[in-house]
């Protein structure tokens, strides 16, 4: 969907595997130096007992799972790690290097969009004797770095060395949607390494977080500028995430396209294709505008900016802003050069395209009909290959509809997910994976609208109209009202809703 400078876009086939170990298989973990080394003292092993909601049976939870990752002590008695190491936690334990006892911890801050988290031990003085690691800058291409962590759940610390091989914007597979700057290395980053520090000259230059599944010996770490953004973001006691410009752009590599856009021979930029309704740029930027400069950096026709010796996608500049900051753009519109200041906001409608963590699914069950918000988690109930196997109308609704009908973006689409069979509903012809258009004649823009339309209805029937193919169905209201409680009891649904 949006280009990388919205920092969020679809990754049809994520190629990166998160590297928190789910189950430890045999893995050689050479304990390197003595555990008394100050760097190694700061590296902790994190054990997370997590439990996620079950989006297919949203009233119940999935089985708890245990995973292991790494972390490191930073200033303030906190431990930095990946968000995916501590997601959906019910019981979080840290093992300080050299201390045989596990210690309970809790999540202080988590950024699922940048896969970073800060956790703190419940015992406030636990880390007093540990020297926090200090952050460095961006390592140079070709320089060597060391990773530290507890790969594959081993009990002892392990370190590996590798070369910085690439610096670029990449998909963060934890959220499945966000793009930020990453550093690629051939230092082994394996399950369990997640959250461990990557060091150069004794300073942390990144946090190990994911590996490429399609390539061998390719690991990625989160560079310090992304880490710093997270740390600055939470300074005010609130995690706001990343701001979005709220446009999509396309490159202007074709000379004719540049001329038509009115660019002079020495000018370059990218074309605005789409402006998100109610996004930060609405009313400020228009389709057809060419963004020439962003925050004083010239944008090349391929959408990159110069950054020292390398070129990076211009989205990296937006990433350096916090929500509420102003991005300064220089824009060419109909032959005129304009300075456009965009105060950047988050774009909440995009949340439905990301993986959900730490919250349980919203739902409403009425007379056995299970209504849920339509989002990525619901799409994932179609199995691992949901991006190709899900019902085609759901794929259209998820991936394409908002492009054809931008105003649809403001709605929370509601899905009739399935039916818990009961005589009150058993003859409904359509009862699975249907986007709800109207209930009792009322347009549905969010889950609460379904409840209101049902609870205020005085007619003999409830009428459900679905998007696509003219499908619809009804329930007899009396039978539905009578059956409602019975369905809940029969299918062990403790509450008819979670909102």
């Amino acid at each position, binding site marked *: *969907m*949006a*280009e990388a400078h919205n920092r969020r*876009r*679809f990754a049809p086939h994520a190629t990166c595997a998160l590297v928190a170990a789910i189950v430890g298989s045999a893995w050689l973990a050479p304990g390197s130096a003595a555990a008394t080394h100050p760097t190694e003292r700061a590296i902790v092993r994190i054990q997370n007992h997590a439990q996620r909601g079950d989006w297919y049976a949203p009233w119940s939870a999935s089985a708890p799972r245990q995973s292991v990752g790494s972390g490191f002590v930073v200033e303030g008695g906190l431990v930095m790690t990946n968000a995916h190491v501590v997601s959906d936690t019910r019981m979080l334990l840290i093992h300080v290097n050299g201390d045989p006892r596990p210690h309970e911890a809790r999540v202080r801050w988590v950024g699922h969009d940048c896969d970073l988290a800060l956790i703190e031990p419940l015992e406030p003085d636990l880390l007093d004797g540990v020297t926090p690691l200090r952050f460095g800058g961006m390592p140079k291409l070709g320089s060597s770095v060391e990773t530290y962590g507890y790969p594959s759940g081993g009990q002892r610390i392990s370190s590996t060395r590798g070369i910085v091989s690439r610096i670029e914007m990449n998909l963060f597979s934890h959220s499945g949607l966000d793009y930020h700057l990453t550093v690629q290395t051939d230092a082994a980053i394996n399950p369990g390494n997640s959250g461990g520090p990557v060091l150069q000259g004794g300073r942390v230059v990144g946090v190990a977080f994911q590996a490429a599944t399609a390539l061998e010996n390719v690991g990625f770490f989160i560079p310090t500028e992304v880490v710093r953004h997270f740390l600055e973001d939470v300074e005010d006691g609130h995690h706001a995430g990343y701001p979005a410009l709220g446009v*999509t752009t*396309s*490159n*202007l*590599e*074709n*000379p*004719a*396209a540049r*001329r*038509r*856009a009115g660019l002079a021979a020495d000018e370059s930029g990218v*074309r605005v*294709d*789409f402006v998100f309704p109610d996004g930060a740029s609405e009313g400020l930027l228009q*389709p057809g505008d060419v963004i020439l400069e962003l925050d004083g950096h010239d944008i090349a*026709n391929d959408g990159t900016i110069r950054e020292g010796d390398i070129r990076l996608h211009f989205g990296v500049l937006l990433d350096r802003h916090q929500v509420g900051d102003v991005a300064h753009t220089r824009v060419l519109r109909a032959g005129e050069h304009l300075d456009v200041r965009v105060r950047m906001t988050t774009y909440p409608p995009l949340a439905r395209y990301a993986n959900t963590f730490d919250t349980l699914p919203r739902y409403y069950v009425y007379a056995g009909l299970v209504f849920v918000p339509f989002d990525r988690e619901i799409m994932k109930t179609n199995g691992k*290959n949901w*991006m*190709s*196997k899900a019902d*085609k*109308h759901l*794929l*259209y609704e998820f*991936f*394409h509809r908002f*492009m*054809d009908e931008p105003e649809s973006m403001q709605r929370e689409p509601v899905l009739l997910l399935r039916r818990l069979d009961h005589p009150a509903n058993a*003859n*409904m*012809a*359509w009862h699975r994976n249907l986007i709800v258009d109207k209930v009792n004649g009322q347009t549905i823009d969010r889950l609460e609208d379904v409840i209101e339309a049902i609870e205020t209805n005085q007619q*003999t*029937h409830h*009428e459900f109209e679905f998007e*696509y*193919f*003219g*499908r619809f*169905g*009804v*329930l*007899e209201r009396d*039978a539905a009202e009578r059956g409602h409680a019975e369905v809940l009891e029969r299918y062990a649904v403790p509450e008819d809703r979670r909102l």
Partner: protein
Amino acid sequence: MSHRLAPRLAVTVLLALAGAANAAASFDEQVVALSVTFQTWNEGRPWTKNNPARRLASAVVVEGPLLLTRAQIVSNATLIHVERRGDARPWSARVAHVDREIDLALLEVEDPTFFEGLEPVRLASSVPTEGSVTSVRWNERQLEVGNSRVSKIEVATNRYGNVEHHYLLVRTDLEGGGWAEPAFRKRKLIGLTASQENLSARLLPVEIIAAYLERVRAPGGYRGFPYLEVVWQNNQDRALTGFLGLPGEPRGVLIRATRRGGSTCGALRPRDILIELDGHAIDAIGNITHPRYGQVHFTQIAVEGKLPGDRVSARVWRDGREIDLEIVLRTYPSEARLIPWRRDGAAPAYFVAGGLIFRALDGPFLRTWGSNWAESAPSELVTRYHLQAHAQAPERRRLMIVSSVLPDRYNLGYHGVARRIVESVNGQAVNSVEDIAAAFAAPEGEFHVVRLAPNSEFRELVLDATEFETASKRILEAYDVPAPMRGSQTPLPDLGPACDS
């Protein structure tokens, strides 16, 4: 083709009738072997064809004398050879008539002496509903005779057509069938094998075959088979029939949509309950009680014994009361769709402009992703097919796409553009490669502007109009494209008025 064929057939039929009194001929005098070399188009580079391949299949002798087989057997044929009993020599044949909607074709053999010693099959009056039939084919010049047990009759469409009619489902002991093997009972033709999975086969029934042969020979020319193009659902839900006010037990089928150009367009409406068609009561799961086949889908009524233009009566429950109306039966060819499923062997129309390959989105293009195309083709195209395949309208007759780009410095920046839906070219809506060519003749000032349907990549492709001719010529030469364009070969059908007008 039919216009040319019919007068001749009228004569030959008479001749054949004179000799029809022969005693029952043996299978080897009625069944012949086909070897069809065929070649499909390369849908990605539509000016070329893929490597040829061959299918082996069966045909039966019918009066004419002609050979009858399934249309699919001879699709994209470049050479058709026939072999008859006791004769190693291949004879050349060609397609005399074909109806791909119901999947039947007639072949002429160039040398009429081929038919010496062969006898036309006799047609049974209807398919049996129980018992066994005999399936026959040539296999390595040996006649292979298998036994097939009737399991049931089912109303369905063939894989490529729209026409829903009954099929005879059998369990056969003839392995690897599905290639138009004929089936007989009491020496009379019952059907041709339409498809076979393991040992379960579907036979294209003799009733359809007889109607086809009759229609081919009709003096007024071939009119084809009508189809009740309508989207419907079961109506078993008591709550729903109560909601719609239908008294009594649930019955009839609930109409969800009609399609422009289809028989029911303008006659039926969404939320109608179709209770009766042509005097047959329809039950809540869409079955009628057929005098011979028992419970079958009501759509059979529109096909059996019906010609395009015939009128059938319908009784519907609409707005709280029963009304009687009339449906004029029409064909609904693949071309009536926005995204046609078949192209019936026609070469793909294309236009290469500045290296951009334009063409219509259709079934053959989607099927280049293989039998699993619905999961492997780009979701932008698959979802459009799923949601809009039938949504043709006079202002929107085809979805045109840029299928890919032949890279050149002229189209720099667009080399990766592929499989994108085109919204307009130089401000004009485009429904055919001809429209696109015409639009390129009228640039927007110095530029050609191809506007694409929105997605996360390019919204528009801009090309230099002044360089267009020279660049296009250079690109065609570099990539060895023989011609910049192949026009649309199949005329678009008359869609008629919108259904709700």
